[in-house]
């Protein structure tokens, strides 16, 4: 069953386990997926998204695509939405620079591209997004 918040949490905690074990490259991959799931949880939860946000690729067009592009389109879409009930730090996260600018889904085919520092940055951003998702669900802002 498609469950963006639960998937965001699973990818994040699996990534954290890998990172703790020194396996930062695959960890980094999972932090990106966790962030994608959080953003999709928020986009779909707020309602009014013009076309369905893609779930698994088999479900059709990936209009919002992957990070880092997904971050930018999400920031545009979320700007000005009534998210006051969620942690206010999210307004600063989304209006700041894209923390996943150097993340690429195809990095799973590469080796030695991703530094441990990059993975740690992505862990922080993924955690902040997951926190935002959970807080928004608790606040009843997401459908």
């Amino acid at each position, binding site marked *: 069953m498609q469950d963006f918040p639960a998937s965001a*949490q699973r990818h*994040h905690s699996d990534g954290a386990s890998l990172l703790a074990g020194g396996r930062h490259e695959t960890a980094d991959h999972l932090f990106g997926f966790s962030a994608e799931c959080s953003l999709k949880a928020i986009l779909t939860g707020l309602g009014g998204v013009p076309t369905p946000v893609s779930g698994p690729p088999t479900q059709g067009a990936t209009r919002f695509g992957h990070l880092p592009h997904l971050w930018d389109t999400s920031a545009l879409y979320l700007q*000005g939405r*009534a998210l*006051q*009930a969620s*942690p*206010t*730090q999210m*307004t*600063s996260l989304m*209006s*700041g620079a894209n923390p996943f600018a150097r993340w690429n889904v195809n990095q799973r085919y590469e080796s030695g591209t991703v530094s441990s520092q990059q993975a740690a940055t992505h862990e922080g951003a993924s*955690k902040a997004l*997951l*926190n935002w998702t*959970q*807080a928004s*669900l*608790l*606040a*009843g*802002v997401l459908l």
Partner: protein
Amino acid sequence: MATFDEVAGLANSAIATLGDKELGRSTFVRDVSGRVRLVIDDLGRRAGGLSQELLAATDENLRAALGSYAPSGPVVIPASSLIEPTQILDAPGLLVTPSVGTGSVKWLERTITGADWHVEGQSAHQKWMALYSFKGGVGRSTAGAWLARVESGRGKCVLVVDLDLESPGVSNLLSHVGDLPSHGVVDQMVETAVGNVEELDTVALAHIDDLTAGEVWIAPAQGRPREGYTFLPKLNRVYSPITIDGRPLTFADRVESAVSASVEAVRRRSREPDLVLLDSRAGLHDIAAAVVTRLAGTTLVFSGDSEATWIGYGNLASEWGSNAALATRMRSNIKMVASLAPDVGEEAYLARFAERSYACWSSIYDDLQAGDAYDEDAYNPPPNDTSAPHYPLPITFDPTLRHLERASFLAAFESRVAQAAFQRFTQGVQDIIDSGELDGTR
């Protein structure tokens, strides 16, 4: 059918079989629709004490009790499933709702607006004095302009900021429209949001202080009307939270920043204002929440004597009264003003006003202890204590003082009848200003 006010009691009853041992710091979260979830404290050593059966049974009990106020997903959320559980369990806005029984579980209110009515521990600006009323049309702005003029006569530098953003006007009592600054409070808020920090022309010297030692400055809500200058598109943008240099700002922060910018503009062009009067929007509105609860060191609360008004202030007083720290702070900040006192029969009017005002505002006074347990430090002044927050400073109602603009306002200022109408009010406020604090702080 459980309705909003019953839900908290029903939820607390539904978990009554759980003790402090099971609950720990568990917290009810009431969401923006009013639906309720229980974030149950299963962190650390507690986890072993909470079986899956217990969680499932609690979820079921709560769902049955909450009725339509149960969320579609789980009612019980284990804290361990949250990435930042302390943001809920140790949230600064936790309320102990007084009507929810004896449980130790706290409540966290999640709302889109109005959060500032609950804000604790903000450092108010001592020189900022708010003018507030639950209902409009009670002479609040006129009294503010009058006060500014009187204080300038005492040599003070006074800044009047029009924060009645949806229905501004106090500036027009103090200035020709053509002499207003080119920009207003809403411009300041909008331009700052995009980092346009260049100095805007947002304050102007009021043209009333020709004979006095002091100065009156105005910071209008909008700039001088002119071709190409808009207001509504900006007004509609000032309420959103924004981020400046990575720092998140709430609406209240934005108001504070805009007022501070006007204060700084006056200081730059003349001197530091001795008094900043904030003409707040009426009603239980977010502007008022920001100004009264967060920003102003003193709030003059203007009021007629009508049932609807007392119900309104009663709502506010009981909300503040449910939080001891906030109640203590607010009772040292507010002073009632009976701004529609009749010329004839005033004494009886004020006595009745004071009784009703006391009945309303005693929610923010301390409870009086019976007999030997009497606490002499408790603050609970009697209804007829003229220095108490609830006891009004009177302004005599004068129909000629309605719908004024600059010329008629200045004419009124020379009228002995009008001077008499305002005399006790201005004297009372001067006493507050000169003492540096209101009665409740002592």
